[in-house]
């Protein structure tokens, strides 16, 4: 066959590209047998690749997020997923970080995190805090609002941080949710994780591999 060598090398090139595409596939199924819906993608935390405090405080968990959301790089959390508008504004996002401590310490941790958050958000105001249940897990949360003015305009940002305590040898987790007035479903801090698409994530969150 004419050009046989060329065809073989070309096929090899395509195979290499497909191999790279496979290598960059998210590992979403692990040992978690819960079904995800056709419109969502399963994220399952995996120990490999984390270093420093994230490696020291690693915890297995998984959740489902809408296919239209994207995973974004965030070195201070295990994972962060985000829903952006066509113009690039964040509509909602969800990040999972680590918490190390029993449930009795959570109000104190929430206070510390609220103080940290107040430094990063203009016109920060904590609007509520208290015990909460996320799926089967008892936790503690606080909610806040913030108002930002940028060159492009101004808008509100509403946040909700849920702290889930350590249990036995398993570390806890901090679920950090943000929503903004760029979206049409969330209209205040009381709506974060209750309206929009964040409830899909929150309801599917589970500890374990």
């Amino acid at each position, binding site marked *: 066959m004419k050009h046989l060598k060329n065809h073989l090398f070309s096929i090899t090139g395509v195979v290499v590209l497909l191999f*790279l595409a496979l*290598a960059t596939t998210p590992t979403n199924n692990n040992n978690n047998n819960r079904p995800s819906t056709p419109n969502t993608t399963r994220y399952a935390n995996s120990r490999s690749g984390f270093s420093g405090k994230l490696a020291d405080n690693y915890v297995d968990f998984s959740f489902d997020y809408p296919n239209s959301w994207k995973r974004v790089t965030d070195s201070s959390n295990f994972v962060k997923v985000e829903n952006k508008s066509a113009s690039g504004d964040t509509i909602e996002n969800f990040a999972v970080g680590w918490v190390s401590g029993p449930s009795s310490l959570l109000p104190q941790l929430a206070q510390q995190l609220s103080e940290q958050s107040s430094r990063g958000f203009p016109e920060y105001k904590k609007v509520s805090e208290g015990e909460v249940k996320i799926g089967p897990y008892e936790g503690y949360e606080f909610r806040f609002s913030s108002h930002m003015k940028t060159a492009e305009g101004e808008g509100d940002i509403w946040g909700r941080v849920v702290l889930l305590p350590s249990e036995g040898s398993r570390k806890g987790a901090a679920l950090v949710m943000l929503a903004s007035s760029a979206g049409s479903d969330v209209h205040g801090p009381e709506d974060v994780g209750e309206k929009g698409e964040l409830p899909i994530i929150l309801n599917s969150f589970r500890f374990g591999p």
Partner: protein
Amino acid sequence: MKRKLFFFTVHILVPLLAGGVVYVCWRDPNLLMFKWFGALGLERSIESLRAGTAAGQGLPHWVLYSLPDGLWVYALTALMILLWRGTKSLPAKAFWLSLGLLLGAGAELGQLAGLLPGAFDRVDLIVCLIAPAAALVLTSRRVPLNRSLNEAS
């Protein structure tokens, strides 16, 4: 032979490696490749590499999330150019040269149509359209860097 090696290094190997570096150093570690690294006992080395290059996580979003795929599509198109340069079999040549474009842009459009997993991204599509065109332009005889190579073939 030397010229082909130069072409292979500049237009194929370097883009392949550059795309790989972005994934290994700065992308989410929950990718299949990190499991493979773990299985190969490279977990610690990868962790050190990622810790040492953590500052790169501040690179623009499109560099981290769109450029690697574009570089790989570029490398595939360049490989086809290298293999099929000078051949007279037009249908085969056209097929292989367009494969990078078809696979890259096709995957994005497949996601848009819901036929393939993953989220459609406009920037990914633009990068996958630009990459094969860039490969054709940058390896053409009009670019001085490649003139001698073309003349030789």
